[in-house]
């Protein structure tokens, strides 16, 4: 299965992936419009910055997904290897935040739900982070 991988050697820590991700998942085509709303769209990818290395991290779509197994509502499930969240069932209990070893579950505090990377499948697009990375630090590859 193709997954998003991050080559930290090439990550510039520019954070563009976060903005492209948030924009893509805001449902707006225009980033300016997406970010001019009262509620700022949330990225599902997060850049960690270090002294001489940066990398972006988002859901690894684990083979043993603690988030899915621990989900109290059944909102999280595995769909063809991709871990997806049905926000209509999520109650924002954050058991998945507690469980995810990579810290990749994102809280939507206002909506009392969580959100997470679905590899942009719900938008039927190449992942926005991959598309927008200026240095090919984020790639979509099948490495298994």
């Amino acid at each position, binding site marked *: 299965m193709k997954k998003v991988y991050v080559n930290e*050697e*090439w*990550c*510039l*820590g*520019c*954070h*563009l992936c*976060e*903005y*492209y991700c948030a*924009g893509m998942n805001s449902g707006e085509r225009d*980033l*300016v419009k997406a*970010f*001019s709303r009262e509620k700022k769209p949330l990225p599902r990818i997060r850049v960690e910055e270090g002294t*001489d290395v940066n990398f972006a991290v988002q859901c690894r779509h684990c083979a043993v997904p603690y988030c899915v197994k621990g989900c109290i509502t059944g909102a999280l499930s595995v769909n063809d290897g991709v871990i997806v969240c049905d926000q209509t069932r999520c109650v924002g209990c954050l058991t998945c935040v507690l469980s995810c070893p990579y810290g990749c579950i994102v809280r939507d505090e206002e909506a009392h739900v969580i959100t997470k990377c679905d590899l942009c499948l719900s938008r039927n697009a190449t992942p926005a982070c991959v598309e*927008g990375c*200026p*240095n*090919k*630090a984020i790639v979509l590859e099948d490495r298994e």
Partner: protein
Amino acid sequence: MAINYIPANFDVVRDHTRCIKCRVCERQCSNEVHYYDEELDTMLCNETDCVDCQRCVSLCPTKALKILPNENRFRKNVNWRQQLMVEAYKQAETGGILLSAMGNPEEFPIYWDKLLLNASQVTNPSIDPLREPMETRVFLGKKSNEVKYDSEGDLVLSNTAPHLELSTPIMFSAMSYGSISYNAHASLAKASKELGIFYNTGEGGLHKDFYEYGPNTIVQVASGRFGVHKDYLDTGAAIEIKIGQGAKPGIGGHLPGAKILEDVSRTRMIPMGTDAISPAPHHDIYSIEDLRQLVLSLKEATEYKKPVIVKIAAVHNVAAIASGVARSGADIIAIDGFRGGTGAAPTRIRDNVGIPIELALAQADFRLREEGIRDNVSLVVGGSIRCSTDAVKAVALGADAVYIGTAALLALGCHLCRDCQRGLCNWGIATQKPELVKRLNPEIGYKRLVNIVHAWDHEIKELMGGMGINSIEALRGNRLMLRGVGLNEVELELLGVKHAGTAI
């Protein structure tokens, strides 16, 4: 103090209705132009330090930025242009010589733009390169004009001089590791291998990591002799003796100690943090005879297996010098025009010394032919070959191949901000700062280099086909394929071309 105030060159124009305060511009600007003010919740900027490298503009996800020339103007004066006034102020403040980077940007004639190419009509019909084979492969080196037979009457094929085989008449010109980054070198090396052409180490030595690209590497021996040793010479496919550089003829080089970090230091074989100073002349070369000694020494050291290139800057006497070089035992002469790039050169020299490559090439080619020694050497020219037609025109003026430097850097992301000397290149090219170097991913860089050369090669074939020529060899020195436009008689004569409108 107001007296030393120098206005910013640029206005950084931000469309605040588009800015989403993502701060990508801030993170990407090594000149620290942009910054975020938390109290105002807005992006502010310090325009004085902007060099117009366009990195922020290119990465801004909402296209909220524009860099425009600062419209603040001193009182108009045709003689005392604003630039000259600013330079006077700078020198009054610092007492230092002015430094610049990349090629001469001033308004001198560009002869490439005043030369037009021919095409076939009806008779001697044009060739469709999509249907017929087109040969852009060239061999650089001495061409023997004797034919020898052995006692049996068979052709003797031995004793041919060493050659470089190029899939297309384009090579990447000398740019040292130090002046450009590891990743820039990695891109050039990898692209050369894939393209079947050559890149050139410049005078910075060859990083161990790139020895595997040796068959596509020209190793340079310059006046500082940095990084020159037996393995280095053995690894390269050819050796280039650098006498001069188009951007700064007659002077040496100076890579500041700040750029001599561990890897550069090891590669150049000099202590970390010391300035790398290349003397103006080679201290062992004061005559063509001396040059010949170095050429032969290098050949001896490499068992006569590698062609030797001598690179000179295009100066007034270029034709005579080329003639001397052709007699020195060198296999290839490289001539670098006055528009050639540099990582750093004194501004006055860059902008005022040397001659256009078009004239230098035409004259050198004439002279060598006149003297019957044209086949002793191949001619390679650089110093602003900007596109495929510049290359085609260069071949028609007598070149065997061209060197491209700036065009290659553009492919790697350079926006010609011409601030290389500060070592803060936002595109990861002319810098040694690790956080900037990583901005150039060689996987991206090398593909773009491959693309640009492939594109040029396609265009060259199209142009050749139009002229009814199916081999680049047949175009070399074929001035009948050129016509000048808007040139005076002297210029036409020097170039050896007729004016547009003149028939054969």
